């Protein structure tokens, strides 16, 4: 649900749109990602209150209360961040920062001390170090898909025309997780959500209303809602009936999906064991033949889900995984700077331009684990080189 509050009758006295959505983190993240992708930015800490204050909405005592809240929250998030910083990611970041600082120390020494007795200027060391970090950060960024899935969970949408057995599949998947199920009752035409885990990933399983082209007002509403869900889901099971082959209606259902995240789940194979399933392969999607009724093939489907979200980060305990959106953003800013740095070095640009990119890269990493000050760099120069005329 979206609510538009025109200025000045809003919290900040500016035009405000509020998006209300289901409480799941995944849904929120997907919506935020969507907005970020079209060029919006996240609010700075306390920005809404700040704007509310500057526009005269809040008086000082109110602003103070909110400021205290911001402070408390940032303190808490700082300690949370510290806990994270204690982990493997921070060790990697620290390592990159040290390496980049080393490069910056060299570059700054070459710039500021041209007459001192220091090693001659060369691009090879800096270039190889930077290339190494670019690759490593690339590797880290690749873990974000899995990392986010592990920490925030993923959403899995069950889709299909009516009576293909979506509800029974839901029950079959829930079978072993019955203990942690928190079922939300609803009408058959509404969507149901269940929580469970698959291969270590927290999964929110959403059972949609049957999708069918129909004039029925309520049915249309269900379809509209389901289509909306497709775009914010991480994975979609399009359920079809083994005994009926891939019908036109099934194809319509596939139409509304993004093929990159669809499993074609062929249900009711118990009913029709002899049926040639090859017709289902034509869609070019991963196909899982199951029987929700007997449980046949359900484990394999579960494994399929786990491996879909696990990008080879099989044991997250031993390798570094990026789980936070802000970390991903910082890392990718860092990588952008380093890529520009590499081009600058290769183009033969002068050292001060390398320094600009190195500083930008360090600043980006600094957002995750503390900044590198100019004095840190000078300290590096004086401890490493014998400077002083």
């Amino acid at each position, binding site marked *: 649900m979206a609510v538009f509050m025109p200025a000045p009758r809003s919290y900040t006295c500016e035009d405000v749109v509020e998006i209300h959505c289901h409480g799941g983190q995944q849904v929120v993240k997907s919506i935020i990602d969507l907005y970020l992708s079209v060029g919006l930015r996240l609010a*700075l800490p306390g920005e809404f209150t700040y704007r509310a204050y500057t526009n005269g909405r809040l008086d*000082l005592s109110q602003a103070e209360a909110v400021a*205290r809240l911001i402070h408390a929250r*940032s303190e808490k998030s700082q300690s949370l961040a510290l806990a994270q910083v204690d982990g493997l990611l921070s060790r990697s970041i620290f390592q990159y920062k040290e390496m980049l600082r080393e490069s910056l120390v060299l570059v700054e020494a070459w*710039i500021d001390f041209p007459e001192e007795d220091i090693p001659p200027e060369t691009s090879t060391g800096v270039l190889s170090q930077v290339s190494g970090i670019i690759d490593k950060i690339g590797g880290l960024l690749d873990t974000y898909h899995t990392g986010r899935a592990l920490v925030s969970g993923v959403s899995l949408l069950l889709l299909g025309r009516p009576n293909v057995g979506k509800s029974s599949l839901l029950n079959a998947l829930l079978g072993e997780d019955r203990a942690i199920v928190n079922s939300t009752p609803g009408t058959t035409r509404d969507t149901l959500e269940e929580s469970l885990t698959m291969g270590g990933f927290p999964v929110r399983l959403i059972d949609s209303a049957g999708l069918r082209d129909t004039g029925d007002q309520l049915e249309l509403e269900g379809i509209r809602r389901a289509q909306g869900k497709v775009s914010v889901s991480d994975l979609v099971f399009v359920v079809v009936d083994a005994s009926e082959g891939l019908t036109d209606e099934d194809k319509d259902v596939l139409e509304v999906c993004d093929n990159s995240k669809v499993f074609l789940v062929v249900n009711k194979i118990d009913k029709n064991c002899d049926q040639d399933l090859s017709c289902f392969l034509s869609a070019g999607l991963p196909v899982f033949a199951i029987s929700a009724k007997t449980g046949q093939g359900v484990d394999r489907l579960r494994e399929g889900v786990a491996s879909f979200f696990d990008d080879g980060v099989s044991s997250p305990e031993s390798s570094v995984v990026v789980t936070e959106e802000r970390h991903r953003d910082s890392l990718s800013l860092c990588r952008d700077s380093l890529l520009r740095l590499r081009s600058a070095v290769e*183009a033969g640009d002068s050292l001060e331009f390398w320094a600009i990119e190195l500083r930008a890269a360090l600043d980006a990493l600094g957002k995750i684990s503390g900044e590198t000050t100019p004095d840190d760099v000078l300290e590096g120069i004086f401890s490493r080189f*014998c400077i002083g005329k």
Partner: protein
Amino acid sequence: MFSYGKEYQVIVVGAGHAGCEAALAAARMGCQTLLLTMGLDTVAQMSCNPAIGGLAKGHLVCEVDALGGEMGLNIDETGIQFRRLNTRKGPAVRAGRAQADRMAYSARMKGVLEAQDGLDLKQGVVESLTVDALGVCGVETRDGLSFAARSVVVTAGTFMRGLIHVGLKSYAGGRAGEPASEGLSDCLRGLGFRVGRLKTGTPARLSARSIDFSMLQRQDGDRLARPFSFMTSGPVGVDPVSCYIANTNEKTHEIIRQNLDRSPLYSGVIEGVGPRYCPSIEDKVVRFPERASHQTFLEPEGRESAEIYPSGMSTSLPPDVQLAFYRSMVGLEHVEIMRPGYAIEYDFVEPTQLRATLETKKVAGLYHAGQVNGTSGYEEAAAQGLLAGINAARRSKDQEQITIGRDEGYLGVMVDDLVTQSTREPYRMFTSRAEHRLLLREDNADQRLTPLGRKVGLVSDQRWEAFQKKMEGIGVGLKVLRDHRVRPSDSSVMAGLGLEKLRNGVTLEELLRRPEIAITDMVPLTESLAVLSDDVLEQLEIATKYEGYIERQLEQVARQREYEKIRIPDGFEFSTIESLSNEVREKLLEIRPQTLGQAGRIQGVTPAAIAVLNVYLRKHKHG
């Protein structure tokens, strides 16, 4: 105490590099100014190496010049060797460096002071400041004279409680052969200032006649070098003297190591902190044991002087050890020491007690500049002296104080660092301290600061006209570059530029962005460029070639300025903001930042704290 009677508007204490600029600025701005020095024979003395400029320091000299200061002109006239550093790097990190004739430098500056209308130069030792409820009122000298003024600039250098160490012997002194100032720092302490102690040192001066230069590598200056001052016409360095490079060896290091117990640094006698960037030779030997040799430049102190300054060889070892280790070096086997090297400890006043105008927060009208603020270097001192002098004069005339932003000059970076960061060692300027380095070039110091110099009354009509002519030239030139198109049909032009394959016409600006094309390649193409001067063409080239980077830096500047604009009033009650953590509150109370930008640069002040402060300050502003 006898009141001198004459009405001064500005009194400057100390006639070193800071004091000279401060006094000249105040007098040139029309203030009755008194410059008091302990020794009239050591005005603008180069206590350490006889050189001006270098990376970031050369930038400061150009800024002093752009504002209407004297240092650039003084070194242009008395330099005996000029070099341009980093000529193969980009324009922002090129800098001039000059060897000075030490005596000539001092003599010329003294002459300028003596000739300046409205300026009295007097010898006298200031023992105390007179202060009333409204701020400073004047100074009192050891000889029992009191002078009154509304503004006082203290540029005490290393003289306050100066203690010279040569080996394990130490004696009071402000510089070799000159007495220390004993009263002034007690007076400042009494006024409630936090006073700290720093250490620095200088090498021995060697006799040129005793050095075998034939054994050493020679280093020549640039002929016809670029001057520091905008107003110096024509190149400088017409007849450069040479420097020589000598090296220490294992034997030198052995002598030093064996005598460390006689070094005040290593025997624990010295308590002050020395600069990391200027270690003594004994420090170098101890800290870098793997180095078999350290380089030293032997720099002549003047055309007529026999004294040679061995750079990088400062020492506080006893004279016999100094002689032994200098003599262990090739070419110096028979060297005679004319003055021994020494270390000096001195009092400085913690500069976080200053406003960005260099006025102290505690005592209105009292300004500090130079080494008394914990800095090092003639250029750093001169730049601060100029700013302090300008503001002291403006205060006397009831004019608004000026500050210089981090994006406007190294002077701004330095002052901001001084007032927001605690000083642990003598502060020296490096280009790496400037986050907007590409914008702060020697070549555009005039564009950055001459309008301000004009506003305060330090830029003469002659300089202002020349500056405006240059700016007009740049405006015209940029338009020519954008508008003038080269067509493929201009085949001879294209061939000349190596662009035969170009199909469509391009503007000169587009052509100039290509790395292989220089502005000088385009001058023959159009008369409208050919009429422009070389320094205008240089600006056109830099503006075009580095446009992308420069724009990025300008964006950064715009972001930073938002917080610089938000002022924190004097006496702001940080302690009443409960939502600040104790640590942050203590930091803010200690340093008392004057803008939100300054607050954000204090170590330990978090972004969350800045957000909270921001809300409070808005409230304060609206009452």
